[in-house]
């Protein structure tokens, strides 16, 4: 939908109907459209999540260090950086 919308044609929807009800297809389509719109907008605002992958509340500066400026899997460094940040706070090395 975001990168090659011409490919979402009648044949694509016909195939989708083999797996999902009309209600579910409308739900999926609206959900995807909504998220494409808002992800791009929020990307311009430079916000980062309030919480680390393990649920620790962090400020925007630390969150930026943990998550970086591009969407990544949490397993590709974010979990490790969150643990390091927690450890640094505990032993005072960042104080």
């Amino acid at each position, binding site marked *: *939908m975001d990168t090659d919308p011409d490919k979402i*044609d009648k044949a694509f929807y016909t195939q989708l109907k083999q797996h999902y009800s009309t209600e579910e*297809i409308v739900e999926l389509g609206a959900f995807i459209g909504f998220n*494409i*719109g808002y992800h791009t*907008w929020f990307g*311009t605002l430079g916000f980062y999540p309030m919480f680390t992958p393990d649920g620790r509340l962090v400020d925007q500066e630390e969150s930026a260090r943990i998550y970086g400026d591009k969407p990544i899997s949490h397993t590709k460094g974010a979990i490790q950086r969150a643990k390091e940040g927690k450890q640094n706070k505990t032993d005072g090395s960042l104080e």
Partner: protein
Amino acid sequence: MAIIEPVPLGELDKDKFQTRLELAQQLMVPDALFIQIMAHAPGYGEALFDAMYQSHAIGNVDHSLKEIIRIRLSTISKDSYFGTLRSKKAIDLGLTEARIEAGCGNFEIDKQFSNAEKWALTYAQLMYTEPTKVNTAFYNLGKTFYSEPEIMELGAFIAFHYGMQIFMRTLKMAL
């Protein structure tokens, strides 16, 4: 045969949709067809209509400017359904097709638009074509024309309408 058949008007849950259908009839963006499509997922249908209506018809930013932005966005999303709709409220406020066309064209050098309007139109244009240009400097310039709540109103409006346009585009719901 449509890709997704609209729910017939007579089959819509009146408690959920009657007032929304009346609002759609008054504003015409979206029209009843959007409700009839989204009503397949009733919770979504109610919430999405409300968000679409409120983001367009309510707020501090000039409704006619948002109407031009919405139509310009449809030239990016290539959605003929939303691109064809026209707000009755904006028409009543005096918005003309000529001004819409100007807003969809080379507005940067068009003297009929103020610098604030040009910033808002650029915001919409860049968001889904060159989002990296919507940076701190761009927002700082925007703050010389609009309050932060107004910038949030504009950004949320642009994001929401663009998102719905790209979904409706795939359904090929041209009027």
